[in-house]
């Protein structure tokens, strides 16, 4: 029996149905949770914060959503070790809430980007990458205007040293070049596409694994990530 993956619905997010669909594809169960709820549904063993435009992305992406009661509940659960994945707007919310280091600034090209990118798995064994190996290259779409990962140099050094860099944008052959706009289209520092917190149970990434979940959609490379989260929730607290 799978654990329940909670999908918080904060006004303006829009990927919740897609996320639920992808979770069901790997045999998981999910439940939507209203943003005014102060607790996660009982049986919740992992959280997937979907993408979209919470509060219209007004002020800054994620800046208003992070005050939602459900985000406080997620913060408490995360402190107790619950696996949490924030994708796109979900990642932005986690950064704004201080649950993940760094910030997501406007894409360097100043344009919104909806396209496939290649990602290199940097850290395997986390609740969202335990079905993958370091060095695996995945093709997954991005869809954002504010996805340029930014943090002070010391923070980034610390992330690298502590295996907190989850994914990097790369070329199809796995090479990483932060200055190459083809492979690192939003200009993220050191091509960082996803990070985790120090404990490793909270992860954020800009690309949308749920959009790469069926071959008819162009790629299934997102499935191992969704599956990692779903399967880790069956044995809650791995990592």
């Amino acid at each position, binding site marked *: 029996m799978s654990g329940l993956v909670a999908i918080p619905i904060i*006004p*303006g997010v*829009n*990927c919740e*149905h*897609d996320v639920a*669909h*992808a979770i069901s594809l790997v045999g998981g169960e999910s439940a939507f949770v*209203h943003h005014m709820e102060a607790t996660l549904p009982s049986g919740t063993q992992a959280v997937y914060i979907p993408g*979209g*435009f919470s*509060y*219209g*992305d*007004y002020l800054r992406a994620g800046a208003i959503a992070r005050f939602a009661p459900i985000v406080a509940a997620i913060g408490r659960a995360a402190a107790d070790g619950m696996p949490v994945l924030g994708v796109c707007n979900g990642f932005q919310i986690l950064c704004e809430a201080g649950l993940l280091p760094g910030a997501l600034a406007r894409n360097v090209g100043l*344009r*919104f*980007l*909806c*396209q496939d990118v290649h990602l290199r798995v940097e850290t395997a064994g986390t609740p969202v990458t335990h079905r993958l190996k370091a060095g695996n290259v995945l093709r997954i*779409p991005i*869809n954002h*205007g504010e996805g340029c990962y930014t943090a002070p140099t010391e923070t980034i050094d610390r992330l690298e040293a502590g295996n907190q860099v989850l994914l990097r944008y790369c070329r199809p052959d796995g090479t990483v070049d932060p200055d190459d706009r083809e492979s690192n289209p939003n200009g993220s520092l050191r091509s960082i596409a996803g990070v985790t917190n120090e404990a490793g149970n909270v992860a954020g990434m800009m690309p*949308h694994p*749920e*959009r790469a*979940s*069926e*071959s*008819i*959609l*162009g790629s299934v490379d997102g499935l191992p990530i969704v599956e990692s989260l779903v399967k880790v929730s069956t044995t809650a607290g791995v990592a």
Partner: protein
Amino acid sequence: MSEQHLHRQLGLTDAELAMYSVMWSEHCSYKSSRVHLGRLPSDGPQVVLGPGENAGVVDIGDGLGVVVRIESHNHPSYVEPYQGAATGVGGILRDILTMGARPTACFDSLRFGLPVEAPATAVAPSGDSGAADDETLRQRWLANGVVSGISGYGNAVGVPTVGGEILFDPTYAGNPLVNVMALGVMELEHLQRAQATGEGNIVLLIGASTGRDGIGGVSVLASSGFEAGDEEKRPSVQVGDPFEEKKLIEACLELFRSGLSVGAQDLGGAGLTCATSETAAGGSGGMDVDLDAVVLREQGMPAFEILTSESQERMLVVVEPGDLDAALDVCARWEAPACVVGRVTDSGRLRVRQGGDVVCDVPPASLAEGIRYDRPLARPARIDALTARDPSAELPVVTEATLREETSLLMTSPNLASAEWAYRQYDHQLFLNTVVRPGEGDAAVLRVMGTDKALAVALDGVGRYGRLDPRRGAALAVAEASRNVSAVGAVPIAAVDCMNFGNPEKPEVMWEFSEAVDGLTEACEALGVPIVGGNVSFYNETSGRDIDPTPIVGVVGLVDPLPGVPSGVGFEVLGDLVLVAGATGVDLGGSEWAWWNYGVVCGSPPAVDWPAERAHNAFLADVQRAGLARSVHDVSLGGVAVCLCECALAGGVGAVVDTTAWAPAISLSAALFSETSGRSVLSVPPGAAEAIEHLAQTHGVPIFRVGEVGGDSIFGIPLADLESAVTPRW
């Protein structure tokens, strides 16, 4: 007594006068076009609801219907490109929502003036070429603003924009076109009607507060062209709020699904006036409205302003009194503001009160029905002059020696440029339905979740053809859009049209309009595609100059069942055979090559051989169904030459072709650049060639082996050069 107050002597209040004037405007009443629109074929076994509703509805089996609609937002986009386009998207989505469907896909058809200078030979003798530079920059600014408005609103509201087209021509320099189409798929049993029925039922206004946005917008913006002194129209710029719309969509969908709504109508042009009068006229016949209950964004708005405000992101929903609390709870949960603004009556009157006074008391049908004109028609003198000229006589003879140069130059036309800069800014994947994304095929393909079906959608229209012959232009738009959906394996099942024309008070423009209606009719009847909805945009003129008549046609096709991802447009595998399907005629009138390379726009647009067109469409759909071809791409702007270049660019592999293989009897220029309808380029594994040829034969479609995939050039033009030719410089 001053003239303005004459209406009072006639017994009308200020509010009533304002209401009649917006409702009887061109935009709301279709007063100039209605006498013609009735000729459009709108029946078909699959049509559930046709023109006249907020959106058309087509049955696709399994209890499901496709809801589809197209709208223009030309004038607002000229005044403020970002907000004009953004509010255009917002408006069309509410039309789909009003029917009870979640809008799940959006498409855009855009027209601007030239963003780059035309080749020296193409500069029209206009005399004001000195201003070209600033003008070019302005067109880029408009195009970028419109595209970011669509991106900004569509992405944030959570509706993917999965297809469209962007074309450029000097005719649109002073009047860009921004047409948006949207669709949704719904269970037909949940269809909503725009009716206020049941005496005593409660009228809710849901969504944004009401401000002074676009007061008189429909009459000011949609009913007049542009002159110097546009500033006066500026205060009516409307600002869209996709976040508010997103909440509105979720709240309304839940109201509809839980059966709490007995009728719904979006607030678009003419705002509350239109929504209340139309739902009352279509329902129990009467409504009492209390303006004091309307949440205002600004203090002190007089009744006529509240009644005609076009503030975005609002819906009217009718509920039974016993369901009121439940309905308000739903709205509260989605944080969509809602208030009770009225009651359904059977009085036969629309009665509006403010501060205890009755400010309006009229029969709603008198507002909703509007008036109609049968305006005079006159064939424009230019048409005979233009069609009398033979383009071939004004164009050079292309030879093997010059074809490479001719093709390279043609590929620099902005109309052949890659649109990736635009669609990359659009979320085109939300809802996990997009099987063929923008740039991957001739039409977008969206699977229908929960079934093994898919929809294919294409949007097309060519203004230059309309200048030469509006009837053929309109017909060709239907032909191209239908061919595009066939090319990805679909059978066309319905069409919507957006008629962008000049000033209808000119008999020449009305003639063009009437001809275009006949062209649509001819094409839709011939191809068996009913028109289930449309939109008319008149007064597309600047300083007295009308745009070329530009009908834009959106066609929805059904793929049933979807066998997998259809073949794309690109050449992929070395050694595959390249084939041209369909007969090529001498059709250079209005062609891209004649216009871009030589500035020649004359002669007649291609005439369509309808049985051949139909056969070719059926052939394409069968090819995709059988999975026989490696690539399929229809021939359109620029002819076979451009089509081959596009196939090579899309797949990253060139081809070696024999230019005498598909039309040996006509000149090389016509073989390469003719825009004859009903043709395509295919690449097939050598082993499948005979099967394809056999299939073509059974459909009666001529087909020619013209070469082989391979190499990194086409016509000897290196792919790298083509790549830079199609990379936009704006």
